[in-house]
């Protein structure tokens, strides 16, 4: 997805249409963990949009806030967090291009750089680089409260004189100093709008330090150290990390044994919370769409438009929106964890295991999240800085057993081990293990072939632990939810409509046998035997549904593709189930119920017994132990989720990656199912 926020790019650098005047653009920049996003949320609130920087998969957030100098509002672009502009990393390249106004970007009118008062020298490296861009620059000196608690008193005015930019002390988390910052930005934007000379920085004083050469690290380091010493009262203040709590916690959280135990507890708590809390809104969404579908079905006459609306569009939207609570809650919880500083430590704990398979420690969040749903898992892979590491994670994440597979696992393990719950449970657990093994094994293969290279050994800043911001987490959840609905949702709903159409058309006349049964049912009803009439109608419904499925495009596809799946033990009915579940895996269960038993739900034992005893055209059982095991293995490994493919395409940056994921996973699933089916036959389990 390469669309960019409209204010960020030339030549359509207007908001709302070509007739509106050009809105000033302010860039917000800073090191990671400086509270930049918290400040962005403070300034813009919900008046923000998320898109990608053109040609990249890096998120660009653009918001608006009001200023006096412009007589209205400015656009604020939240640039990705970075340590240095000079680095050859994606985030550094994007920031350089924006600041230089390189096509297609529009050069900002002013810059706000957020720096961490508790880590001033290193943060000043970026300021030293920025002032060479000759843009009006305002420095937001954040976390001054924490600096004061550590005995570090910084004189912002003095610092501003030394570096040549206005410095505004703020506490973004509590909103302190934000009004003063807004006023300073007002001045900088006003300066730019008045056409002040480009040779800035914003302040010019006699005390200003000579500008450093950004390419000379020692000069930059010396400049930053002098600015720091000059604003805190001497070199004696330099050098103390000054956070003994963080040091003590790090000993525990990165310890090989204790750290792993804490990690298991934290992640277990996260996923328990996710599953426990998301269930309520998910049920609510399902119930709402059911009512909506029922209402539309009630007011509209039967026909093609009725079916399209009820089964295609409303059903498709419901199937997409139902994931929203999990996605928002997951990002809310991850944002809270990230804000505490714990995630950086957890990455080191997991790095010891994952690096053996060519994945970085940061991959644990996407892989664990994929147990809920691969879509938020893939979206959270943004945390991984290296492109090859990120791609490998995105490609293997759908191997992890997601919640959509659960109904299929329940059905097939139940068919395999009826009356033997221990073995059914064991098979269930083995499905999870098989998925995780396939993910790690595939990552290992990818890193030795088309994504050649080891995962980068980890070098991470370990930020101080702090109380997380619920407000920032809520904004993150909101923006991720909106992004999911707007981008993936449109694709997903389109796909759902197509799959519904394939399953529902062409509509055919009921078979003669069903008509005969309905006539008998009518006769039975008139003879005063309603139970018999109901039974006959039920049989007629079953025959009609089965006939409609068989004659639909999906049914015809089932017969066409039957030879492909026959080596796995699947007949045309199972092939239809496999094909329709490309929409979403859980569709398999309802397809089997409709096709084999003739009802929409497969939850009560009667239906499961019906599926177990269902027969093929030649009279043999549809589900033998070998077929059920083969199908189970196929579902563990196959890429049967079109919405996930849509998200992979977006996050990996191309259709080719989604195609590779589909082909690789489906091929692996086919081969593994083939080996399972014939292996069991060879062992005498038919």
């Amino acid at each position, binding site marked *: 997805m390469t669309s960019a926020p409209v204010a960020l790019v030339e030549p359509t650098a207007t908001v709302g249409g070509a007739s509106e005047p050009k809105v000033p653009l302010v860039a917000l920049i800073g090191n990671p963990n400086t509270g930049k996003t918290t400040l962005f949320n403070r300034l813009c609130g919900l008046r923000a949009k998320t898109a990608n920087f053109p040609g990249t998969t890096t998120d660009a957030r653009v918001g608006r806030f009001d200023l006096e100098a412009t007589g209205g509002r400015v656009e604020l672009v939240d640039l990705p967090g970075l340590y240095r502009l000079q680095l050859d990393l994606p985030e550094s390249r994007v920031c350089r291009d924006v600041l230089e106004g390189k096509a297609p970007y529009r050069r900002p009118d002013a810059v706000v750089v957020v720096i961490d008062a508790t880590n001033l020298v290193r943060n000043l490296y970026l300021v030293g680089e920025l002032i060479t861009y000759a843009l009006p620059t305002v420095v937001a000196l954040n976390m001054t409260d924490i600096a004061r608690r550590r005995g570090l008193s910084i004189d912002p005015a003095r610092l501003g004189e030394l570096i040549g930019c206005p410095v505004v002390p703020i506490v973004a988390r509590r909103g302190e100093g934000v009004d003063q910052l807004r006023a300073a930005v007002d001045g900088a934007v006003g300066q730019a709008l008045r056409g002040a000379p480009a040779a800035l920085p914003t302040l010019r004083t006699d005390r200003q330090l000579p500008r450093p050469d950004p390419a000379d690290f020692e000069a930059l380091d010396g400049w930053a150290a002098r600015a720091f010493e000059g604003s805190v009262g001497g070199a004696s203040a330099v050098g103390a990390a000054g956070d003994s709590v963080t040091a003590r916690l790090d000993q525990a959280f990165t310890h090989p044994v204790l750290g792993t135990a804490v990690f298991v507890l934290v992640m277990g708590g996260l996923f328990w919370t996710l599953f426990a809390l998301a269930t309520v809104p998910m049920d609510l969404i399902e119930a709402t769409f059911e009512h909506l579908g029922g209402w539309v079905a009630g007011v509209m006459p039967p026909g093609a438009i009725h079916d399209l609306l009820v089964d295609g569009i409303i059903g498709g939207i419901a199937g997409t929106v139902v994931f929203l609570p999990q996605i928002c809650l997951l990002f809310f919880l991850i944002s809270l964890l990230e804000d505490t500083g714990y995630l950086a430590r957890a990455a080191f704990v997991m790095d010891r295991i994952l*690096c053996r398979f060519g994945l970085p420690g940061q991959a644990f969040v996407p892989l664990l999240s994929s147990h809920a749903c691969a879509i938020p898992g893939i979206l959270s892979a943004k945390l991984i800085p290296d492109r090859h590491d990120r791609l490998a994670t995105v490609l293997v994440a759908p191997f992890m057993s997601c919640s959509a597979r659960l109904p299929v696992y329940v059905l097939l393990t139940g068919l395999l081990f009826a009356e033997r719950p221990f073995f059914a449970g064991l098979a269930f657990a083995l499905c999870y293990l098989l998925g995780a093994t396939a993910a790690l094994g595939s990552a290992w293969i990818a890193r030795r072939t088309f994504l050649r290279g080891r995962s*980068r050994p980890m070098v991470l800043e370990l930020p101080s632990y702090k109380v997380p911001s619920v407000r920032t987490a809520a904004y993150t959840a909101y923006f991720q939810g909106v992004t999911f609905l707007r981008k993936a949702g449109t694709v997903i709903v389109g796909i759902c409509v197509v799959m519904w159409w394939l399953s529902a058309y062409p509509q055919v006349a009921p078979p003669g046998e069903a008509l005969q049964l309905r006539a008998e049912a009518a006769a039975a009803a008139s003879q005063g035997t309603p139970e018999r009439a109901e039974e006959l109608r039920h049989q007629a419904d079953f025959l009609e549904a089965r006939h409609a499925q068989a004659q639909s495009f999906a049914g015809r596809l089932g017969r066409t593709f039957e030879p492909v799946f026959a080596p796995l033990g699947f007949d045309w009915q199972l092939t239809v189930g496999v094909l329709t579940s490309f929409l979403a895996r859980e569709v398999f269960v309802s397809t089997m119920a409709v096709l084999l038993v003739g009802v929409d739900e497969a939850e009560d034992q009667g239906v499961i017994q019906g599926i177990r005893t269902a027969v093929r055209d030649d009279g043999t059982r549809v589900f033998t132990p070998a077929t059920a095991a083969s199908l189970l293995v196929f579902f563990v490994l196959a890429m049967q989720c079109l919405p996930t493919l849509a998200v992979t395409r977006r996050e990996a940056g191309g259709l080719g990656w989604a195609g590779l994921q589909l082909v690789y996973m489906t091929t692996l699933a086919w081969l593994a199912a083939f080996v399972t089916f014939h292996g069991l036959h060879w062992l005498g389990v038919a």
Partner: protein
Amino acid sequence: MPRPSIHPEESHRTVNLTQLHAGDCGRLHAAELGHDDAAILMALGLARRSRFRVSKAGDPWILEVRSTRIGLADAVARGLQVIPEPGS
């Protein structure tokens, strides 16, 4: 990372970072790492001659460079040659 232009005597005192213990101090002498890793270390403030203190020894290594705490995988730590210094 290019070799530092420091006094030849100092190179005789260099040791691998993994030979230091928690609480030890030192200065970076050379980083035998890939370009990206060396650049990130430098951006985090750990450049040649940068003074650091070992906050935690063992995987991951945690170094304090001024106010920045940097976590390093063992593979990175093994690539760093340092000159031990008395603690402050």
